[in-house]
Structures are given as structure tokens and as C-alpha cells.
């Protein structure tokens, strides 16, 4: 099966969100409610629709308020992933520079080879570039980092949208999303789309 675990989890989230969104269409379907008031199956559908809609609104509200937290966590993951590699490469480059300079001073390098050529050549064969085998683990972390990236990106987009569209600054976010025409649908579809894109990237990285 050509599916990465992180991508699979993201696709599963996307599938659940899509199902909740589709069910939420029944939310204000008065025609069905009036025509089949006693139908137990439709009763369940309406209940799931209500819960799905309120869950999506809660999620959007959280993404709005936690946009700063997502961004800072993302930055911390980037620092944790990149800085050790950079630190290792710096240490290695220093060792190579000193070794090449020493070999050059003692005339142990092949004639015509400068210390900087030695350094360039040795660095390309260095352990940090070739033998650390951290690529696979780093790829896992990059896949995991895509989650806070997506939530931070979405949270900030939501913030911009709500800032421009909300008439009253005191109004709760979920109310504002519900009252502005089509905004709930646009935001839900955008979220599902973003989840699918993240899943595809994770799958590409993982497989």
C-alpha cells in the first residue's frame, strides 16, 4: 500500500470533516423537518447535522484563537529539526578546515591542491552530508510539522477574513461565521481542501 501513516491520518481527518460538513446541510432543512416530523431515521440525521455543525464551528473558533500557539509550536519544531543539523555541519566544517590547513602547511596535500579545495572536497564527502541517516526521521518530523503549519496558516487566514468581514468586534467568532452569508461553507470547504493538500504532501514525503 502506497500510503504514509501521517498522510493516512490526515486523509482520515479530511474524510470525517467532509462527512460532518455534508451532514450539516440538513441543519436548516425545514421542508424535511415538517414533512417527516416523526421519522426516527431523519431525527438521527438532524441530530448528527446539529452536532456536526456545532463541532465545525467550535473547531473554526479554536483555530482562530490558537493561531498564535500553532505558529509558535511550528517555529519550535523548525528550530529543533534544523538547528542540530546546522550545528553538526558547523562542527564538521571547522574540523575539516583545520585538518586541511594543517595538511597544507605540512605539504602533505597533492601538489597544486589548495587548502580551500581540500575543504570543499572533504566537506562533500563529510559525515553530516552523507552518513547521518537522519533524512528519514527528519522527513517524519517535516510531515508532523505540516499539521501546526496548516493550523497556523488557516488560523491567520481566518483571522484576516473575520477582521474584514465582522461588523461588530465584540461579536463571538462562531456567531459571525454563521451570520455572514456563505462564510460557513467557504471556510469548511477551504479547511477540507487544506487537509487534503497537507495529506498529499505528507504522503509524498512518506512514500
Amino acid at each position, binding site marked *: 500500500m502506497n500510503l504514509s501513516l501521517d498522510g493516512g491520518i490526515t486523509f482520515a481527518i479530511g474524510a470525517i470533516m467532509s462527512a460532518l460538513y455534508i451532514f450539516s446541510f440538513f441543519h436548516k432543512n425545514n421542508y424535511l423537518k415538517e414533512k417527516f416530523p416523526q421519522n426516527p431515521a431523519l431525527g438521527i440525521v438532524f441530530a448528527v447535522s446539529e452536532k456536526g455543525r456545532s463541532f465545525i464551528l467550535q473547531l473554526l473558533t479554536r483555530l482562530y484563537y490558537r493561531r498564535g500557539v500553532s505558529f509558535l509550536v511550528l517555529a519550535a519544531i523548525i528550530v529543533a529539526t534544523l538547528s542540530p543539523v546546522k550545528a553538526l555541519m558547523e562542527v564538521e566544517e571547522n574540523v575539516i578546515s583545520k585538518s586541511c590547513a594543517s595538511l597544507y602547511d605540512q605539504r602533505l596535500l597533492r601538489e597544486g591542491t589548495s587548502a580551500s579545495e581540500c575543504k570543499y572536497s572533504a566537506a562533500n564527502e563529510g559525515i553530516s552530508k552523507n552518513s547521518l541517516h537522519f533524512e528519514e526521521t527528519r522527513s517524519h*518530523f517535516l510531515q508532523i510539522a505540516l499539521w501546526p503549519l496548516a493550523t497556523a496558516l488557516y488560523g491567520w487566514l481566518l483571522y484576516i477574513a473575520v477582521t474584514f468581514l465582522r461588523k461588530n468586534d465584540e461579536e463571538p467568532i462562531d456567531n459571525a461565521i454563521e451570520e455572514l452569508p456563505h462564510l460557513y461553507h467557504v471556510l469548511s470547504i477551504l479547511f477540507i481542501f487544506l487537509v487534503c493538500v497537507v495529506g498529499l504532501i505528507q504522503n509524498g514525503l512518506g512514500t
Partner: protein
Amino acid sequence: MEHSVYQSAFDSLYIDFVIGVAVSLDVIALTFCSAHIYQSGYKTWLRWAKYNAGWHAGLLLFYLVAIDVFSVFAQFLGVVLALPLPDWLASLAPIWSWIGDRFRTHVIIYAAVIAMAYVWWKYSEKVVAVPTSPNIDEAPFFLKPIFRRFKAPSSSTESRWFWHLSACLVAIDMLALAAVVKSGEKLIQFPQGLSNFESSYSLLFEKIVTSANIDFLKATLTVTFAVFSVVFVLCFLSGYISNRFWNSVSSNGEDPLTSLQATLIVISLRLLEPLVIFYFIIHSLAFLVTGIPIHSPAFMLGSGLLVAALVNFVGLKAIIQSAAAQSQSRRDSLQLGEGN
């Protein structure tokens, strides 16, 4: 069978002591705001130090062992997922193989990320808690019945169970510390080479037996002993320093500036602790990425970003309010003492 070389950054006594100091910061803040402790003399400080050091070291050891049990369980699950399916389930073989492969390649990363997220979450609760008014609901779930049985929070501040609850609540982050210690290096130590899953029970048993060696036991006991001794010494000293500080303040007359000063000290101690612990989280993440235990000043930046996320999450106002409530409880208890 090839075993990984025993290697751990936490073997260094220096790092064990740094961690011990970091987890003592909340005890210092609690002692600083507990008039019934710092006013009572060195015998009480010794008793208080014993309770706090005992709870810190005890909970740390418990959680370290719990994580080892989880590690062994994960290894067994890895073997079970490697077993071939019976013929009548042959059609599910590709899915079974996918689950087994993904489990073996992802379990360490996911366990580490979940543990680190949990550490962060625990600090988000702790940074706004008021330990001078201990609440049973904040205790570990398996200890709640014991504290409820002995009515710990409603007991007098001099009672044994009140002290046990207070000390337990400031040691709640030991799970965080155990997770940090285990997430990077030691999770791989026991059983050795968790990243290399065995294909049979006999190989796995052999690996577990080899892993449970004297070096592993020594490393576990060293970190526990370091935490016990550092918490004990710093807790005792904090009783002495708090006594000197508040005596000098009361001789000059306590003013609003002193309350502000006390609140700022509590806030600083509250934020300094996660800053140090998050450094080790970033260090463990870096270890998972590179496989080499390295320290870098850039990790401090990562740690600062996680603390900033923490402040953003709970809100600076909530942190200030809880710190003010903690330092206020000292004055309340003093007034209560005078009233009696």
C-alpha cells in the same frame, strides 16, 4: 543479534543536576509563599524538604518504570504485528503488513511527540495553578482516591496529608520529566534498540534480558538520586531564604511594592522551569532527528518559542492572577495566624 551501544546524554551528572534544579523551581515558589513552613524553623524545613524530595524522586521513578513497561509492550506488539496471518485471512495480508511496517517505523516518533505534547500540556495547567490551595482534582488519577480517603485538602496546613498533597501537586511534572528523559535516549535504551524490532519472541526476550543491565539501572537510579538530593537541598535552602526575606520585609513594613515583588518572583520561577525543561524537549527532538545527543544555544530559542506558545495559550493575565493569588495566600495565612 546486534545491540545498540549504551549511550545517553542524561548519564552526565551535570545534566541530572540541571534537571533537578529546574524541577525544584516550583517547590521554591511554593515554599516562598507558605508562611506556615518558612516561619517554623529548620526542623520544619527539613521535614518539608523530605516530603518534596520524596514525592519528586518517587513519582519520577514510578513514571520511568511505567514508560519502560510501555516500551516492552510496544516491542511485543511489534513482534505480534510481524507474525504472518493465517491462510483464511490471506486477503488482508497487504493491510496487515502496512500496519506492522508503519507501527515499527513510527512508534518512537509518535510516542516522543505525544509525550512532548503532554509535557507542554501539563505545564499549561501548572503555570496557572495555585499550589498553596491544593486541589485533589489536579493530582494523578491513581492517587486521588488516597487523598480523598484522608481528606487531604480540608486538613489543617500542619497535617501530614495536607503536606503530602501539596508536595504531590508540585511534583506532578515528574511525568513530564520522565517523558523527556525517556523520549530521546532512554526509550531506545530499554529494551536496547527500540528502533530495531525483533521478529520473534525468543529474540525479544534475549534483548530485554540484555537491556536490563547494571548500566541501565545505574543511569535510572542516578537521575532519581540527583533529583532527590537537589530538590531536598534547594527546598531546605528556600525555607531559610524565604524566612530571611520575609523577616527583613516585615521589619521594614510590608508595602504594595513588596507584594508586587513577591508576585514577580513567583511568575519568574513559574516560567523559568518550563524554559529549562523545554530545552531538554528540543534536545530530545534533535536527538531523534540526528541520532546524536548534542547541545546547541539554538535550542534555547526553541525552548523560548514553546514558553511563548504556553503564555499565548493560557494568557499572561491568567498567569499573573494565579501568581498573585499564590503570593496573596501567604498574607491570608499570616492574618489567620494573627487572628488566632
